[in-house]
């Protein structure tokens, strides 16, 4: 067990190293003078000089990388070029909003995907199966920004059922908060639902063909009990395995969803900082997203090793 943990942790280090190199390169390998790009053409000479000094542009690249990394490990993500506030503070401020959106979207996704997959796998090659497959395919083909616009048009502009966009903290006005989250959660959850549905369907079909399911049948359990009590637990394994991928999809989708629905979260921050060329903020956002995914993957692997001895005993394919 501990050998597996050590190995897994050691494998994470080079990944984190490359993540940091990529994020660092994003800004430092732009052709031209980064200070001028950030401040614009009309910036004063003094402001440019000050920013160059702050970024250490007068030093060699690898020194800048090491200095940057050193600050990073101490929790210093740099300061926003726009408002001068520490990047990390702004990130942490925006995060709860996106976490709320991610959770509600994940709930929407699983609420659609799990019943649909069970139905499709159970009644295989029936009309249910084909319908679920078709909806799944449509789900991954609909661009989420269009889905968002159409929902606003239908539910907010035409039927006036829901407010079109905006955000209120749940502790200020919970019912308005929830009403505002309905459409964004559907938009962000639907693509994920399609992914989870396709995966869970094929994994259920596989599990339903195993010996222990046959044994459960032989005991005289009916189909429903077999699926609910035995099959679905194991079929969920691949779905949990791709938790990191799902988080990655949620964070990427949040960029679009938060922009359409004017939600002041992490994704909106990404777009705003990119459009205003606030590069320290861009770096912070990108780095934060990647770290979240790396750590989620690490966590999932650790939990597995703990729950399933086969995983920690087996040599992972290189």
């Amino acid at each position, binding site marked *: 067990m501990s050998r597996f943990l050590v190995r897994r942790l050691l494998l994470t280090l*080079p990944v984190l190293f490359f993540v940091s190199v990529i994020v660092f390169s994003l800004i430092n390998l732009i052709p031209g003078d980064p200070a001028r790009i950030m401040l614009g053409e009309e910036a004063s000479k003094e402001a440019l000089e000050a920013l160059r000094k702050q970024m250490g542009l007068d030093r060699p690249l690898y020194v800048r990388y090491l200095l940057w990394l050193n600050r990073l490990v101490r929790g210093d993500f740099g300061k926003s070029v726009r408002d001068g506030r520490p990047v990390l503070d702004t990130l942490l401020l925006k995060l709860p909003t996106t976490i709320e959106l991610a959770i509600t979207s994940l709930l929407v996704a699983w609420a659609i995907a799990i019943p649909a997959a069970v139905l499709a796998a159970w009644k295989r090659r029936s009309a249910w199966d084909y319908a679920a497959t078709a909806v799944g395919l*449509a789900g991954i083909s609909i661009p989420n920004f269009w889905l968002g616009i159409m929902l606003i048009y239908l539910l907010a502009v035409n039927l006036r059922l829901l407010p079109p966009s905006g955000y209120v903290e749940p502790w200020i006005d919970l019912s308005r908060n929830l009403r505002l989250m309905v459409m964004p959660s559907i938009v962000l959850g639907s693509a994920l639902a399609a992914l989870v549905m396709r995966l869970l369907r094929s994994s259920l079909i596989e599990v339903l063909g195993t010996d222990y399911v046959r044994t459960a049948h032989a005991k005289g359990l009916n189909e429903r009990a077999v699926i609910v009590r035995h099959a679905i637990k194991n079929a969920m394994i691949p779905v949990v395995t791709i938790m990191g991928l799902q988080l990655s999809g949620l964070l990427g989708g949040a960029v679009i969803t938060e922009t359409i629905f004017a939600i002041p979260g992490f994704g909106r921050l990404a777009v705003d900082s990119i459009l205003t060329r606030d590069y320290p903020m861009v770096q912070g*956002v990108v780095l934060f997203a990647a770290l979240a995914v790396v750590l989620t993957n690490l966590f999932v692997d650790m939990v597995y090793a703990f729950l399933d001895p086969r995983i920690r005993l087996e040599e992972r394919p290189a």
Partner: protein
Amino acid sequence: MRRPADAVLTGGLPAEHAPAPRYGLAYLGRRYARNRLALVGLWVVLLIIGTAIFAPWVAPHSPIKTNFENLLKPPTSGHILGTDDLGRDIASRVIYGTRTSLLAGLISVGIAVAIGLPLGLLSGFYRGRLDDVLMRLTDAMLSFPFLVLALALAAVLGAGLDRAMIAIGIVFTPGFIRLSRAQVLSEREQNYVEAARASGAGDGRIIWRHILPNIVSPVLVQASLSTAAAITAEAALSFLGLGTQPPTPSWGSMLNIAQAYLSTAPWMAWWPGIAIFITVLSINLTGDGLREALDPRLRSV
């Protein structure tokens, strides 16, 4: 991928006589045509490609000519899909938009394959230090949410369709490195590779003549599905203002503008979205059909 039966059939033969299992095109076509949906998808894809090529003849008006006496007009016989905020014909813009989208899809996936396939081949064939480094690097790249990385790259490279295609291409590259590497890892252990080596073939010849033809199918399938994703990505970047720049018609930027006129001119938002949906769906159907036709084992799943 090679089926066990093929390995047995070709394993004992001299390398020159052990090519990839090249099913005839007619055979593949018949297998493909058994899937009705895939067939429909393919026809729609061909129709869209035709629309893109012949856009100047298909489009009723100029896609960029403004007409300030005809702003935000609902669909009429003159402008069957209506006009936009600058009085431009929406139908013509949607038709010319196929060019932008297909170009973006093909070129960005082309970039990803051109970089990813050779790296994956070398990485899987030689293993060792190169492989270790590349695998951790792809792990790192795959840790970034796809759209976040594409956005950041597009921001650094600057706005514009060409830069967006490069950004999307780079983001898709690790996927192709991983796929081709995994394929090579299983192929290099096959008997036919050993036979080729025994008959004196060098590394380059083995990779190029023997392994590459055997891994083309999965790469082709992934390329087609990635094209669909790349088209969505270009539309997303343009929607956020970082992809195609005005006045070039792009479905994503059309939707960006349409957002502001949802209550007064909703027709502006319908067609670009429907166009993306149909294009992406039909490419996905074609890709799924290809996968089934090329890999018989998937039939049962």
